[in-house]
């Protein structure tokens, strides 16, 4: 196998990995503020795609505007979901909230089927034109959008968490819910904001991948599984860990295809994930730490 092929495999892995990373970022954000794995995160990806397709094809709006509607619309749905289904559960018991998100996932995907129909839909590529060639490998233009937007999301999130008062409050909240109150921020509002952010990121993932893969009411769960796996692989902590987890998972899959078998690529990457968990139960970049007596 030559160098151009290897590069091609790496590019494929990075492209899938970036998509996983975007979804994983959404998991991380909600986890940070609530301690909850949001099983509806994959549905946000689906909604981002579906809403932008609806805006573009049905309403006939230009693509950038349709993309914006996809992202903002999903964010609004995320907020509504938080207000109606998460906030009323006052004790914030993580397991109860997780099961609520499972219910939300069922509800959102099936409502989408009622509203948008059961067939798959697609969007045109953001920038038309033949794919780019370098070193014997090729890369389609949409991948650049995916890489760029993933990088942008990480930078924005990192700056948000470290430089803004709200972001710092959210970090404080993830460590201790009362800490946020001490900084003068209402933890309830932070949870709402985190759902808005996570939904917007999921929507973004849906919008950028739809031109490549099409979307349908039932795509949410597979995005959800991959994103969850990426977030756990990286270690549920910070945005960087989510991105590393996503990229590692993507590369793992494409290298499995390259050197082992495409039939078993998912099994192989899941086995690796299990081994990582058994050796490092906190994920690749997760904080370890002994338990206190």
């Amino acid at each position, binding site marked *: 196998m030559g160098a151009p092929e290897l590069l091609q495999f790496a590019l494929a892995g990075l492209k899938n990995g970036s998509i996983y990373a975007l979804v994983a970022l959404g998991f991380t954000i909600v986890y940070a503020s609530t301690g909850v794995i949001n099983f509806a995160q994959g549905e946000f990806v689906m909604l981002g795609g579906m809403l932008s397709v609806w805006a573009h094809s049905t309403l006939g709006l230009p693509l950038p505007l349709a993309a914006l509607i996809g992202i903002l619309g999903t964010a609004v749905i995320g907020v509504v979901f938080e207000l109606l*289904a998460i906030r009323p559960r006052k004790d914030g018991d993580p397991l109860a909230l997780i099961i609520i998100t*499972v219910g939300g996932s069922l509800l959102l995907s099936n409502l989408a089927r009622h509203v948008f129909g059961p067939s798959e839909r697609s969007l045109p590529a953001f920038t038309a034109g033949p794919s780019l060639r370098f070193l014997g490998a090729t890369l389609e233009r949409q991948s650049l959008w995916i890489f760029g937007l993933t990088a942008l999301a990480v930078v924005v999130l990192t700056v948000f968490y470290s430089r803004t008062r709200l972001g710092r409050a959210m970090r404080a909240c993830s460590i201790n819910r009362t800490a946020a109150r001490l900084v003068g921020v209402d933890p309830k509002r932070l949870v709402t904001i985190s759902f808005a952010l996570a939904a917007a990121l999921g929507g973004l993932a849906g919008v950028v991948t739809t031109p490549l893969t099409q979307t349908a009411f039932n795509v949410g769960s597979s995005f959800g599984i991959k994103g969850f*796996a990426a977030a756990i692989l990286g270690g549920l902590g910070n945005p960087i860990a989510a991105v590393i987890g996503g990229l590692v998972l993507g590369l793992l899959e494409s290298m499995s295809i390259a050197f082992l078998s495409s039939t078993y690529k998912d099994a192989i990457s899941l086995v690796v994930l*299990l081994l990582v968990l058994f050796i490092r139960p906190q994920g690749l970049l997760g904080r370890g730490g002994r338990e206190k007596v």
Partner: protein
Amino acid sequence: MSLLREHWRKLALLIVGAGVAVVPLFVTGTDARYVLKVLSFVGINALIVLGLALLFGYAGQVSMGHAAFFGLGAYASAWVTKSLGLPWLVGLAAAVLLTAAAGILLALPSLRLKGHYLAMATLAFGEIMRIAFVEAKGVTGGPDGLSGIPYASIGPLSFDTPQMNYWLVWGVLVLAIWLAANIVNGRPGRSMRALHGSELGTMASGINITGIKVRVFTLSAVFAGVAGALYASVVGFVSPSTFSLHLSVILVAMAVLGGTRSLAGPLLAAVVLTLIPYADAILPGLSREVMTVIQEWEADVYGLVIIIVILFMPGGIAGALRGVFVRGGEAK
């Protein structure tokens, strides 16, 4: 007092056993077969959820991979009875042994993991098994599945009618409830409640927490495996699409909706949620139009029910039941 309760329990068990046993005698209409088939599916789901209730409600663990144990049991017994032509009890034993072995193998390394990491590990296990079910064509029949699986039989007794199927499934379920209740009320249950109260105190009592968790995990895997063996013989067909992550998640949702430290709550949740799409099996007045709407909106209704129950019944169904019972004058 304790003696009185002991008798109460025996009596109640007898009455329920008798109640379960006589249901087919009342179901005699043209749709008896349908009603009994639905009740058999309900019993099978309830059996898996019973195991998950032990695991989640008493040992505080979550498994997102129980559909895989369900599948392992189904394929094991299907393969043994259909492909090898061995008696059904051998198939059942194979299902039990295989799921027990898989349960221990998964539990030992996984129980070091906490919360979400455990959820991911069990989820990964479930997906790996699903891939195995598709790829191990020689044993599982691949995506087309295995059809023509023989009915269950014990010696000359063949469970080849819906009545017999029903009796088999519910007989096993009642037995499993008895076992689970004994565990919950016996030493292992006491140890698990202790763990819930104080982890340090439990360790200081010399109780091997991991050992208990591994055993509960294994037991719940075996319950799912037995449910699988029953499923294979009741449906006569097994294919990989049944044992999906979606099923695992729904089963966990049933256990959580039921509430912690209760067997009745999760069982009730399993019965009610399983019956939603088959509502006309127990409510014969429902028209076709209503059923069509229910089927069309079934998944949405599931989602909504899950959200609403958890929001407005914080202790799950078990919590609500306890409330009713306490108000009903049981408080001493």
